[in-house]
């Protein structure tokens, strides 16, 4: 589920963009330690493969068909950090070239699908593939799609997009159905690939730390509770925040210049909101800049080492 622009309110997209930037910078550095520069084309080609694989329809009965989403498949084939990079590149191309998913919503989509979707998809494979291989792959793909979709749904709800309980339940049922299809396709695809060439599917023992397991578990919790909380608050995150008293505490920590998404001292509310929006963009830009510099410096060091 790619969220287009225009759905998320500024506080939501600014927060998610700001969160996606360090996440991607960190994962890029991590992926770089796992993947040599000469293997970068493989990651790009795998991204193109996932795009193309979506053209293959899998009949799932009742005259309908589904197609691969790919987060869990990539995680099993490439490892979680490189897979997250490939999914990020896919989402960027989809947003820029196909207008599938928004530009400002890219941070949200990246977090939902490339970060949480991939890590959650890898989690069961990492810990249970040794004994229950098929079940682990299925569970990974199922969780990957359902977590991504539920997170997207919560973000929409937090942005105040109104949905009745009925609609939310129907959406959750649809998510579950597409998650089951993804699980079946991923299992079938991995088994078919293993038949052709056993060594191409990554062994599940090679990477993974408790930290990344924590990311996965956090994502599952976030997704499941997110929907419940978000749907309880039809007017969006700020109403919820006010009710729970988080707003006042958050304001003193991070939101001081923004409080309630309006700059203090500016009475005109829309002007304030726009100003806050611009400030948000500048903030993202600043953070990206700093992280980019940091990772670039490391890249240079890494490149010298590899070049030797």
């Amino acid at each position: 589920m790619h969220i287009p622009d225009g759905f998320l309110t500024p506080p939501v997209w600014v927060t998610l963009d700001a969160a996606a930037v360090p996440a991607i910078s960190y994962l890029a550095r991590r992926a770089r330690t796992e993947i040599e520069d000469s293997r970068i084309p493989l990651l790009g080609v795998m991204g193109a493969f996932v795009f193309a694989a979506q053209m293959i329809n899998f009949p799932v009965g009742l005259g309908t068909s589904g197609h691969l989403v790919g987060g869990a498949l990539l995680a099993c084939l490439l490892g979680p950090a490189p897979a997250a990079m490939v999914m990020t590149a896919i989402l960027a191309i989809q947003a820029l070239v196909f207008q599938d998913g928004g530009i400002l919503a890219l941070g949200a989509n990246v977090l939902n699908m490339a970060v949480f979707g991939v890590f959650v998809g890898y989690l069961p494979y990492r810990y249970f593939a040794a004994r229950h291989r098929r079940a682990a792959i299925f569970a990974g793909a199922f969780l990957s799609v359902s977590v991504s979709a539920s997170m997207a749904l919560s973000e929409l709800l937090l942005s105040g997009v109104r949905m009745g309980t009925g609609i939310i339940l129907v959406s959750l049922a649809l998510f579950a159905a597409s998650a089951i299809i993804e699980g079946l396709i991923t299992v079938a695809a991995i088994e078919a690939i293993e038949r052709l060439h056993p060594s191409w599917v990554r062994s599940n023992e090679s990477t993974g730390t408790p930290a990344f397991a924590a990311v996965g578990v956090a994502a599952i919790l976030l997704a499941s509770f997110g929907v419940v909380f978000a749907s309880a608050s039809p007017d969006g995150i700020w109403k919820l925040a006010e009710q729970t008293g988080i707003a006042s505490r958050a304001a003193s920590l991070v939101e001081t210049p923004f409080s309630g998404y309006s700059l203090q001292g500016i009475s005109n509310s829309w002007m304030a909101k726009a100003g806050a929006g611009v400030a948000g963009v500048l903030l993202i830009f600043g953070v990206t800049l700093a992280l980019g510099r940091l990772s670039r410096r490391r890249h240079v060091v890494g490149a010298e080492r590899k070049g030797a």
Partner: protein
Amino acid sequence: MHHVVVERWSRRESPIHRRDARAKLVAALAMIVAIATTPATHGISAAAYSVVLLVAVFVARLPLGALVWRAALVLPFTAVFALASWLSGDPLRASALVWRSYLSAFTALLLISTTPLIELLRALEWMRVPGFVILIAQFLYRYLFVISEQAQHMRVAARCRAGEGHRLTFGGAAAALSVLFLRSYARADGIQRAMLARGFSGHFPTTIPTRFTYNDACFGALAAAICMGIRFAQ
């Protein structure tokens, strides 16, 4: 295919096509941020953004009808939520969802229709998006054409074997997927070989920098000013 048409548009010639990708990226971001922060009640602002976009399409000498239709691909998704908002008694939010998402998608489409993707990626790199992601996206886009063509050939071949009216079975689709994977993997190996054969030394050489001219700066500033002007006008 969508990206083939867009790619062709992006390599046309016009005053907007000539501008540096960075200037166009800033302009598009200004527009999208302005749209995203305009209150739902300001329908008139939406009309003003539309006029600006129409002028841009005209200056870029792009086919308006085709752009209008292509940007509409976002509408089915939007329609579902707009309907839900409408039914729950919030028609203002419903209409804002529609115009915000449509105008944002149109802006993004206009950006990619006037800027070759590769220049856009360079502009993103200039905005400090990690080079690793940029390189992956660059290779992804380069081989998107090649591999989707391969997938299409496989689909035709499968249809020929299965005969008219017969659908691919689930197992058959999985087999096709694995063959596509195998070929993609072999292609990646081939690319790596070609890179090494031409002396790839462990990191990608830096590309030739493009010049950011006075005109580019003016264009970016003007576009951002117009967007903000509309945003703040009563």
